[in-house]
């Protein structure tokens, strides 16, 4: 049943401009994060490992992603769910045997794939931009890969939260508003004490930062593994429980 529901979601996503939204977001992050690549001061350190050119680029990505990813997730979830509210899709699906929870799970799969590809493309393009700009120091691929992997997981967790919210609250501006506030929290979490990043889901965009400032230098950092695992586990469990509850509920989810 979930396979059919996923196929249906792919067909429903036609003309929702999901791809365009993701492309715009990737282009924005790459452009904003890579802006420093063209300054003379930065270019001077392209061949000096002590200048940490890749680390600086990666930290820019962390900052730009914290600023944009919560909004992208909220917009994608809102668009994919709003069509059910507007088109009476919940009832249509329910009489065909697909509960609202099944639809939400299917939406999570489809948008999850889109977000994963977007996140991956973002990192690859930034690495490509760095190489194209002429950084000759070897890139910290493992560090970048770990960050990208963590970012995918945090995006998926936030996607689940926003899908549930969009299903429960018919007015999609609420979800978008939450995403905007989340983006603020994510950015400020980069500046706040580390523990503050673990308080709210959006703070994990900062918590997964692979780098931190130490004096004038960037030092390797990372999330507290068990806290990240707890967050991801809780998000997945709560989403599945919420979907099950939606399937058992009467009428639509809102």
């Amino acid at each position, binding site marked *: 049943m979930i396979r059919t529901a996923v196929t249906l979601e792919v067909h429903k996503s*036609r003309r929702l401009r999901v791809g365009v939204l993701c492309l715009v977001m990737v282009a924005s992050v790459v452009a904003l994060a890579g802006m420093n690549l063209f300054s003379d001061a930065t270019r001077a350190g392209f061949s000096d490992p002590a200048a940490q050119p890749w680390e600086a680029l990666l930290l820019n990505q962390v900052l730009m992603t914290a600023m944009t990813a919560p909004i992208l997730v909220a917009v994608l979830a809102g668009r994919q769910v709003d069509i059910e509210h507007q088109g009476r899709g919940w009832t*249509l699906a329910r009489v065909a045997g697909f509960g609202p929870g099944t639809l939400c799970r299917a939406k999570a799969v489809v948008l999850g794939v889109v977000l994963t590809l977007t996140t991956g493309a973002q990192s690859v393009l930034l690495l490509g931009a760095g190489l194209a700009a002429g950084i000759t120091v070897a890139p910290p691929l493992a560090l970048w890969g770990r960050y990208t992997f963590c970012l995918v997981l945090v995006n998926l967790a936030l996607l689940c939260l926003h899908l549930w919210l969009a299903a429960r609250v018919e007015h999609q501006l609420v979800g978008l508003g939450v995403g905007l506030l989340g983006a603020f929290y994510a950015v400020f979490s980069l500046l706040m004490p580390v523990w503050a990043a673990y308080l709210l889901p959006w703070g994990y965009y900062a918590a997964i930062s692979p780098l931190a400032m130490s004096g004038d230098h960037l030092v390797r950092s990372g999330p507290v593994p068990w806290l990240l695992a707890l967050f991801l586990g809780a998000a997945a469990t709560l989403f599945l429980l919420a979907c099950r509850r939606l399937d058992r509920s009467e*009428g639509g989810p809102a």
Partner: protein
Amino acid sequence: MSHVITTEGLTKTYGSRTVVDSLDLRVPEGCVYGFLGPNGSGKSTTMKMLLSLVRPSRGAISVFGRPMDRRTRHELSPMIGSLIESPPGYGHLTGWENMAIVRRMLGLSERQVRRAIATVRLGDHMDQRVRAYSLGMKQRLGIAMALAREPRLLVLDEPTNGLDPSGIEEIRELLLSLADEGVTVMVSSHLLDEVDRMASVLGILGRGRLVFQGTREALFDRSVPDLVVDTPEPRRALELGIPAVRVRGGVRVSGTTDDGTAELVRRLVHHDVPVHGVRRVRRSLEEVFMDLTGREGLS
């Protein structure tokens, strides 16, 4: 006569509020069953229970002779088409794309989908986005979605809501032709006139209770015809305190028995009010409906 739908004591309560109260429905096979009641009388909730979209608080539902509940819904639903509340349809997709989704959702063939579209005569507009459809076209698309699985039972909740007279006529003709093909159609409305012209059996809800179920003729038989007293002096008749309304050439009295009629005529004559004639007139279906539903109004 076999029944496609039967319910026994069907009840739905939300907290202390009883929305549907002890319904014993009998929907005969192959007919158009008009399910009438003012807004908020419990029609939609009843239909949702029949489709197992809402759990009854009490009572039992049987569809095609089998109990309808969450466990049997998957076996029975291929035989049932439905349109509940407003018509479904993804506005950003075309009519074809919407029907393609329904086809995949229900595992139908291309032929079934094309037949349903042809039945509702929407073929010329299937390339348009549903967002651009008129309400009538959306209703027809919703009915096509319900018809696509070639159901033996069609449950339609207010399918003519918001339609203009020609749209209502189209839907009426469509439902009658489906009933001619042997499909049982249960259609709800708060507008008596719409249902009266297509339904052969009526079920009337008032405040969650089934206040009438049967044929149109049986409904008339239950009501006492009004009495019209022909008199050139209706004002004097009304001054006597008779519970009547003035009509052309006399007064009209509702709900009067034969004994009451005799007493009325005696009083009029006693007070020298000229009585030129007394006759019974059949009440309109709307008046009967209003009486049954407690004068809650039709809209």
